[in-house]
């Protein structure tokens, strides 16, 4: 996600870039399965025992299908551990493009409210930037990536450079009307998603086409219609002639010349042969993903940096965040039985945060947003219905009632206790230390998800929902760490080298030619899907590094 942006920006600035990817190269022909028909799917898409053995964790992720296994790691090859009585579900794929192939594409800006949050309630340290510093970069990455969305004029969720939004369905329009009437200040808007609804010339020149409303994005898209490193940033980098992609090669350490205090390159391991090789560079960007980048820095400890490279603050690996999800709700929304949808929207609706914003909250700071959708029930309901014969079959032809489903994504507070560390002695087959994750959610997360459940129920009731099902607001727990798949914060940026790993340019305080622009830099997590923010900060940091290099500072 973020690495492709750094490669594009630096290549376009005229610098030679080595993109080191631990996974294999990905091609449309070999890896994408977005033209699979239902009758091509083996064994009714049921997971095999071998799947559960090879992918005990990955096989549970939303996008793990019999025809998308190629995008998820075999867990047994990539072990990690969790501290006693904690859990962490780590979903990932190691291949060219990483999770930018399988991501949910929801793309939201953080707001001034988010960038001020730590300073206002004292959790974590103050962001070293504000919204106006990042706004031009949000514009820049949105224009290139292509984000479909509606202009809403909300301070909690700033508008952006949008291509036309997806329709809301008839049931969602009614739901929107009742929610906005019953709860003034709340908004139900089309999701903002990185799928092209009106491709620009620039996008078409990269071979990208308009989204065909198939909703097969998790299978890879042969039209390049959603943003991924594979469809957009890497092709842009490649076409400059300045990029070299070195795949099936994992970075083991960042090498530093202890005399000059500068990084001189990275020590890598060839995944197939195990052969170690050094690749030198003027500047090193780490974009391996929050946990892998942090592990590389921890593993790069040396005489001057006994606790890990760039870790003079001691914050490396700490303040691990994700978004806790929960407050699932579903119901039947009566009416609209003479209406239907056409096409498969790779998106849903979004309800921006209202708690601790336009509405008060008890027992927690910050807030949550919702993602959801309402469509007509389909044939699977016949699997559990009485009846046999022609009448049973005929009834199955008719679309069922409209069913709404929604889930909340809540902000997790930065907390030094939540951390990732290197296992004392265990390594994987390539000699990398095994990560140990020690992350627990606290009262803020618990109270927040319980409030979200009450709000879910109230909105479904206000919309006249029947057969409403939600978790129990008195006993529910937030989903375990990792389920949000937004690991963040373990190399946070800040204003003070004593309490942060990076400065306001994603640049290491300790090693001037070392930058980190994946989720590790996040000083707070907001409640919005963070990938768009990683992209904006990556483009900004890469251009800043390019300036320093042109000035000779780096």
């Amino acid at each position, binding site marked *: 996600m973020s690495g492709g942006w750094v490669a594009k920006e630096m290549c376009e600035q005229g610098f030679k870039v080595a993109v080191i990817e631990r996974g294999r190269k990905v091609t449309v022909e070999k890896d994408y399965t977005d033209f699979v028909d239902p009758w091509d799917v083996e064994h009714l898409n049921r997971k095999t025992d071998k799947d559960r053995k090879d992918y005990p964790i990955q096989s549970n992720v939303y996008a793990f299908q019999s025809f998308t296994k190629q995008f998820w790691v075999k867990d047994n090859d990539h072990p990690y551990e969790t501290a006693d009585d904690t859990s962490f579900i780590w979903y990932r794929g190691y291949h060219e493009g990483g999770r930018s192939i399988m991501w949910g594409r929801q793309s939201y800006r953080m707001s001034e409210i988010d960038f001020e949050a730590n300073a206002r309630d004292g959790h974590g340290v103050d962001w070293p930037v504000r919204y106006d510093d990042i706004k031009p970069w949000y514009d820049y990455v949105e224009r290139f990536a292509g984000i479909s969305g509606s202009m809403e004029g909300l301070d909690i969720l700033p508008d952006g450079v949008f291509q036309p939004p997806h329709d809301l369905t008839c049931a969602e329009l009614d739901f929107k009307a009742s929610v906005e009437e019953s709860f003034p200040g709340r908004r139900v808007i089309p999701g903002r998603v990185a799928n092209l609804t009106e491709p620009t010339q620039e996008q078409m020149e990269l071979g990208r086409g308009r989204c065909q409303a198939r909703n097969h994005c998790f299978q890879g898209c042969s039209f390049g219609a959603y943003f991924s490193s594979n469809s957009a940033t890497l092709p842009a980098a490649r076409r400059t002639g300045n990029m070299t992609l070195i795949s099936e090669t994992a970075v083991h350490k960042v090498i530093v010349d202890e005399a000059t205090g500068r990084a001189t390159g990275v020590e890598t391991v060839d995944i197939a042969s195990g052969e170690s090789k050094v690749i030198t560079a003027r500047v090193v960007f780490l974009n391996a993903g929050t946990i892998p980048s942090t592990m590389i820095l921890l593993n790069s400890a040396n005489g001057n940096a006994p606790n890990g490279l760039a870790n003079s603050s001691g914050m490396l690996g700490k303040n691990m965040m994700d978004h806790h999800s929960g407050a699932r709700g579903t119901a039947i929304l009566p009416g609209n039985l003479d209406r239907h949808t056409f096409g498969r929207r790779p998106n849903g609706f979004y309800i921006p945060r209202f708690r601790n914003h336009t509405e008060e909250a008890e027992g927690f700071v910050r807030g949550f947003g919702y993602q959801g959708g309402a469509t007509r029930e389909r044939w699977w309901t016949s699997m559990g*219905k009485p009846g046999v014969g022609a009448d049973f079959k005929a009834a199955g032809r008719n679309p069922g009632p409209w069913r709404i489903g929604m889930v909340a994504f809540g902000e997790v507070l930065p907390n030094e206790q939540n951390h990732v560390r290197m296992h004392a002695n265990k390594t994987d087959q390539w000699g990398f230390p095994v990560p140990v994750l020690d992350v627990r959610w606290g009262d803020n997360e618990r109270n927040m998800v319980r409030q979200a459940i009450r709000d879910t129920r109230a909105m479904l009731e206000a919309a006249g929902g029947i057969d409403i099902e939600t978790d129990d607001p008195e006993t529910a727990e937030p989903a375990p760490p990792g389920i949000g798949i937004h690991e963040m914060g373990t190399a946070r940026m800040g204003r003070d080298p004593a309490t942060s790993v990076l400065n306001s340019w994603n640049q290491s305080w300790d090693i001037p030619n070392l930058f980190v622009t994946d989720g590790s830099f996040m000083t707070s997590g907001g409640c919005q899907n963070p990938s768009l923010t990683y992209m904006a900060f990556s483009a900004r940091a890469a251009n800043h590094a390019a300036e320093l290099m042109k000035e000779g500072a780096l």
Partner: protein
Amino acid sequence: MVHDVQLHRRQVIQSLIALSAVGGVAACGGAQESSNGQVAGQAAPGFFNASEMALIAAVAQTIIPMTDTAGAVQADVPVTLQNLATDWGDTEFQQYWRSGLAALDAALTTDAGDGFTSLSPSEREAALAAYDAQVFAGTVEDGFYRDFKATVVQAYYMSEPGATEELAYEPVPGEFIGCVPLSDFPRTWAT
């Protein structure tokens, strides 16, 4: 508005059908194609024996008969179930299905001792309709029959005739429209 959609849709599909066909085959080829080629009636070799396959075919076809579109047998549901049990199912699944089918066979045998597969289509429908009603009313407890029916229905609607003739299937819709008259697209979408 909708007319344009159909015009546009046809163009999109025509320009992509070659790619789709090639992509579909390349993406998953192998056993699924060859097993479809067999005549549905023949007992596909595998875990279920001939009499079990006959019962599966008879009950499945009674649940979803031939109408203006394919029934369960024409849609190769029995073959899909045979592949599921043979290639995917573990011993626990296989035993559950073997014992479940035996019990279902007994439950559907008439008082005069006639087995389900020996009945005429209308006799089969009467016998199965009665049994199905009892199970779904809760007067008879038969978890296996519920699983059997759910698998038959899933296998049917995921089959090519089930998805493309009985229901509506758009491999490449071309665009999303959030609210259209049901009369324009009256059938449930297959995907």
